């Protein structure tokens, strides 16, 4: 196989997203929605912009996901008191209750995807993907794309 890493990353990203979509069916959430809940729970309240940047979701798609989650009472959006033009997004108690179901799905697909890798390989993969994400986050802050997650 002469495929480069870029091709492999694109394909495996699709495989991971689709597996996650299937795995999450029972939760009623889409992968991006689950990621939003997990991120807000793990990292605390954050601005809408920061959330979009960390998840690599463009602003217009993000709004649709946030609307859906807010409609279900899983998060709330508030004006930032220090800058009224900004929105701060925060997970609700109800959202916190829903998040563990999402965690389980993430772990389930991860074990499926990475079944053949040793713990050491998984850590190495993780470290390298984290580097890639950081690099691309810098790239993206200067130019905005329009891809959507699912």
């Amino acid at each position, binding site marked *: *196989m*002469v*495929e*480069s*890493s*870029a*091709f*492999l*990353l*694109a*394909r*495996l*990203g*699709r*495989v*991971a*997203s*689709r597996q*996650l979509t299937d795995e999450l069916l029972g939760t009623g959430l889409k992968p991006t929605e689950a*990621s939003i809940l*997990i991120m807000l729970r*793990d*990292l605390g309240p954050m601005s809408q912009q920061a959330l979009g940047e*960390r998840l*690599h979701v463009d602003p217009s798609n993000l709004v649709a996901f946030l609307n859906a989650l807010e409609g279900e009472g899983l998060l709330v959006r508030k004006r930032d008191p220090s800058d009224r033009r900004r929105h701060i997004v925060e997970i609700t108690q109800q959202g916190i209750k829903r998040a563990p179901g*999402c*965690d389980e799905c*993430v*772990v389930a*697909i*991860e*074990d*499926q*995807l*990475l*079944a*053949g*890798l*040793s*713990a*050491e390989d*998984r*850590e*190495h*993969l*993780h470290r*390298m*993907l*984290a*580097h*890639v*994400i*950081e*690099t*691309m986050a810098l*790239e993206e802050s200067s130019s905005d*794309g*329009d*891809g959507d*997650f699912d």
Partner: protein
Amino acid sequence: MASATQSDQMDRLVYIDRPALLLARVGRITERRFAEELKATGMKAAHVGILINLRELGPVSQQSLGELLHIDPSNLVALLNVLEEEGLATRRRDPTDRRRHIVEISERGFERIEQAETPIERIEDELLARLSPEDREQLRALLARILEAASPEDLEEDAVVPELN
């Protein structure tokens, strides 16, 4: 069984940074970059991937190509149909076994792939900018192993790209 192979370090990760979610996010960014960079060539990443392989392999049976690239047979047919319609690859019956198809890149396919080469290198360099040459090779090897281990059901629908744009 699920957590038996997970190290303590992995268990301490916040969920949002777990490899599966990172992979989905990196994949999404990569696809977006492919779409931007390949726009001028009129091809999508899946088509380019097949053409690059056809260039390296020479004439090859459709079945071997699918196995090599881990593409589900029906998806491969859809992708090859598009390449054939565009005159970028040809399919013919294998004279030694009429049930088999031999796939080959065309002259036009060679030309088209050259247009795509620079953008692909650019994407690869961007993505892997912070990795050492050893890490780059390791990453590629690990990703290839994950793809090889993926079950056929996982790969279904993958690479389904109905037409060139």
